[in-house]
């Protein structure tokens, strides 16, 4: 038990503790409060909603593309529109949906799971969201103005270079990536510091929930992968804006340099999306089998090795570029090796399900669907890891099938499972189980119907990124089948949206812990109060709610009249110091607006830097201006007993 020097202003009874905490931590009411909020739950929610809106937009783009490809030489979209659509679909799903939504769920849940009051850097969190939103709006406004990027989310040079893509479309591509990378990087920093320094006392590293481990690994991957894409897109922007020649072979540049740099980010990106999904699955499996996931150390080590190995695979995106064979074999070996930690996790989940007493709630159904789809994507992944086989199916529909199985299986199914699982915590109401089952089965059948035929189309020679195909190729029937599958997916997603809309108002009340789960977020009310926990819990095991039934032991002596959060040590989570958190502030939003002005003007003129940088500095000055009232007071915690 830990205690902190007594404070005269500290109330003693539970009711007034809660009242005072609420007064201290709640956001200002009204629109102003919404704009100035630094609460991780408020920001997390809007982050999740925004990402889901982009998910629906990206899905609609895919739907229109499937309509175009339903039959040979169709005329729903011409080549110019189709190229924008497939680029927008890829960019939306990768940069505006998959990474942000995982980060967002992490930003919402991690503090609750580790017994913290907020993320470590609340203002940075707000800034990250606003920059992300600005990037998404920038991309979509450009798209609606017919300036949407049209060279693919990978935008290979020289096609994306100034000579072959004049106009502003590729600049929009490069700059909207910069927005989202900044958002991802600040979120990664917050998550890492929050996880390392704000865990409840007693939550040693080896007692952390597997989802928190997954987010920690993901955040480190973001930290090491994202700077590459931010750099490489800036090099491209410079080639286009100020006539540098990084990628121009005619002037000593190198077209392949782009591919190396892009995929050095682009491959970890896949695992950045996947890893949080693995975390969701572990949490849902534990709760729905009513036992802890088997093999905790193996699960953690698997997550870590996936994180490491994902940086050694990038060349398997370049097997057809004519790199030396010996070097390619190394990447084949690495690509195959990453199957092992992924496999270990699957095996451990199956073992857990075997040993537990599964309840077939909707979140668990999504986990079962995840295993099926993800394993199919995994085995085709092993196939395309082979250089010889990949050179045959590379850039064909086989690859389209493969990575949709991996990403829908590995990210979307766990995410939807997570939605059904944590929706009650976030909103206080349950999602409908009946609609959920329909939602699941439509998606499961729809996804398989859409993407399974694509394996065969690839083997039959259908290349990716084609706006149409000739009847003589014989690819029509399977494409039609895929389009029918896509209709089912659209209906499934629609049901999900309806379920959310209806349940928000009429769903059954959830209570604190509707699933009988084991982790800390279920110890507080649903939805959680602004301060998360009235008393910071003390953790004595991996499954605190199962191991310590009844009232959790709690930290006593924290002030409730100021925004004090407890900082604990990295390995053992021993109380270390107190950190005073900032009150709501408008400066993150203003800084994000200045950032936006800088980035957007920069695609038109190098003078953008001259206009934007002083603005940005000014807002940062406002952000960091010292106030007497939130003077950063640090006190050491005394250990007693």
């Amino acid at each position, binding site marked *: 038990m830990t205690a902190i020097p007594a404070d005269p202003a500290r109330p003693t009874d539970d009711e007034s503790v809660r009242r005072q905490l609420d007064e201290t931590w709640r956001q200002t009411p009204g629109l102003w409060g919404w704009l100035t909020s630094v609460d991780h739950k408020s920001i997390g929610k809007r982050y999740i909603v925004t990402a889901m809106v982009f998910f629906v937009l990206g899905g609609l783009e895919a739907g229109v593309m499937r309509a175009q490809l339903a039959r040979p030489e169709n005329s729903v979209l011409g080549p110019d529109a189709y190229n924008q659509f497939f680029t927008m679909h890829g960019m939306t799903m990768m940069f505006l949906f998959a990474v942000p939504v995982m980060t967002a769920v992490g930003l919402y849940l991690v503090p609750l799971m580790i017994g913290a009051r907020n993320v470590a850097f609340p203002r940075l969190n707000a800034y990250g969201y606003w920059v992300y939103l600005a990037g998404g709006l920038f991309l979509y406004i450009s798209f609606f103005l017919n300036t949407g990027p049209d060279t693919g989310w990978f935008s290979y040079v020289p096609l994306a270079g100034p000579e072959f893509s004049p106009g502003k479309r590729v600049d929009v591509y490069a700059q909207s990536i910069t927005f989202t990378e900044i958002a991802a990087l600040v979120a990664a920093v917050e998550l890492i510091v929050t996880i390392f320094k704000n865990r409840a006392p007693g939550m040693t590293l080896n007692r952390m929930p597997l989802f928190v481990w997954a987010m920690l690994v993901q955040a480190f991957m973001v930290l090491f992968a994202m700077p590459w894409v931010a750099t490489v897109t800036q090099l491209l922007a410079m080639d286009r804006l100020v006539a540098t020649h990084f990628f121009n072979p005619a002037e000593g540049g190198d077209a392949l340099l782009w591919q190396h740099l892009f995929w050095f980010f682009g491959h970890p990106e896949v695992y950045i999306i996947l890893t949080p999904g693995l975390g969701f699955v572990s949490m849902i499996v534990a709760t729905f089998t009513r036992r802890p996931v088997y093999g905790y150390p193996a699960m953690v080590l698997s997550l870590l090795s996936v994180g490491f190995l994902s940086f050694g695979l990038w060349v398997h995106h370049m097997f057809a570029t004519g790199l030396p064979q010996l070097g390619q074999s190394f990447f084949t070996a690495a690509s195959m090796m990453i199957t092992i930690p992924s496999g270990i996790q699957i095996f451990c989940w199956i073992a857990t399900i075997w040993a537990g007493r599964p309840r077939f709630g909707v979140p668990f159904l999504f986990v079962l669907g995840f295993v099926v789809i993800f394993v199919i994507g995994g085995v085709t992944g092993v196939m395309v890891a082979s250089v010889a086989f990949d050179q045959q199916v*590379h850039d064909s529909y086989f690859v389209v099938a493969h990575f949709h199985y991996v990403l829908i299986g590995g990210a979307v199914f766990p995410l939807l499972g997570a939605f059904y699982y944590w929706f009650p915590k976030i909103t206080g109401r349950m999602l409908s189980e009946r609609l959920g089952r329909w939602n699941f089965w439509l998606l499961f059948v729809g996804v398989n119907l859409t993407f399974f035929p694509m394996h065969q189309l690839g083997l039959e020679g259908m290349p990716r990124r084609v706006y149409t195909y000739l009847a003589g190729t014989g690819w029509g029937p399977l494409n039609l089948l895929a389009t029918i599958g896509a209709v089912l997916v659209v209906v499934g997603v629609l049901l999900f949206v309806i379920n959310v809309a209806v349940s928000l108002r009429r769903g059954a009340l959830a209570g604190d812990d509707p699933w009988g789960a084991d982790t800390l977020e279920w110890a507080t009310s649903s939805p959680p109060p602004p301060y998360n926990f009235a008393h910071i819990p003390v953790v004595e095991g991996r499954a605190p709610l199962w191991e310590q039934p009844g009232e959790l032991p709690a930290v006593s002596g924290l002030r409730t009249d100021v925004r004090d959060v407890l900082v604990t040590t990295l390995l053992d989570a021993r109380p270390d110091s107190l950190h005073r958190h900032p009150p709501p502030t408008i400066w993150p939003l203003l800084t994000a607006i200045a950032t936006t002005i800088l980035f957007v003007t920069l695609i038109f003129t190098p003078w953008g830097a001259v206009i934007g940088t002083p603005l940005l500095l000014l807002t940062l000055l406002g952000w960091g201006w010292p106030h007497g009232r939130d003077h950063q007071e640090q006190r050491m915690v005394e250990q007693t007993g």
Partner: protein
Amino acid sequence: MPLTLASTLVQQAHASLNPASPQVRLVDRLGTAMFVTAAVVCLLVFAALLWAALRRRSGAEPVAGGRQERPMKTAVLLATGVTTVILFVFLIFDVSVGRSITTNPGNDALQIRVTGHQWWWEVQYRDSLPKNWATTANEIHVPVGRPVVFELRSTDVIHSFWPPNLSPKRDQIPGNENSLWFQADSAGVYRGQCAEFCGHQHAKMAFLVVAEPADQFEGWLARQRDTAQTPTDSRARRGKDVFMSASCVMCHAISGTSAGSRIGPDLTHLASRRTLAAGTLPNTRENLTGWIVDPQAIKPGVKMPPNQLSGPELLALVAYLETLK
């Protein structure tokens, strides 16, 4: 597993054929082995998952640790071990196939230079004597049973050369030279298509590989080396004048005439080719006429402009182009 498809535009028929070269045969064998293993692995995992989820359970509450976890440990370790072994076998199989398909083709090999352009293929048969060079487009003739080395280039953006029945693909990257080789086993017409996204008409950038017996191939090559015949009938002669005075001559070459531009496909033997517009249309009079008048309707974004010619001019031009056998 039907790994490949040979379906020519000429025949307008879908035909799932077997591999047509030793290279693709090896890849097909590797792919089939991996596919079968993958299917078995999937079924085993799904069966294990279903059994784990649905098996009948005894009354006792589950507890973590203890005796119950012993079989779980064995199962997880065994599954991981089997996975590792399978991956090792695949790795070795892959490396050996990779080595076999990239061996030296030998000195007898025919050399063909294929240059990717937005959105067509320039095909050049080189020789030690430049006068023996032959240039064509979108249709590659190869002799059966003789290795053919392809020198792959691009002068604009990245393309990727992929005739699925005959060879795995290889990118054509400006500033980098790539090559591949294969040997066609049997005569036939095989379709190939650009595999790297290259802009507006990536979808309609196809080519044909015509594999034929050696003597037939030599005859074809000799004809391709010839300069174009001067037309004899009057309409075709008028057509030639139209060609030389309209915008055609700005981009296309016809050897033996003053047309020498290399921006678009070489038309010296246009009438001998099976398709137009990079494997997009069968080479018929109607298609050729339609293509000349409004190529943008057939391949939106293509670099060829629409041509406003009077009826008689157009007929004459088509008549001339049809003499270019």
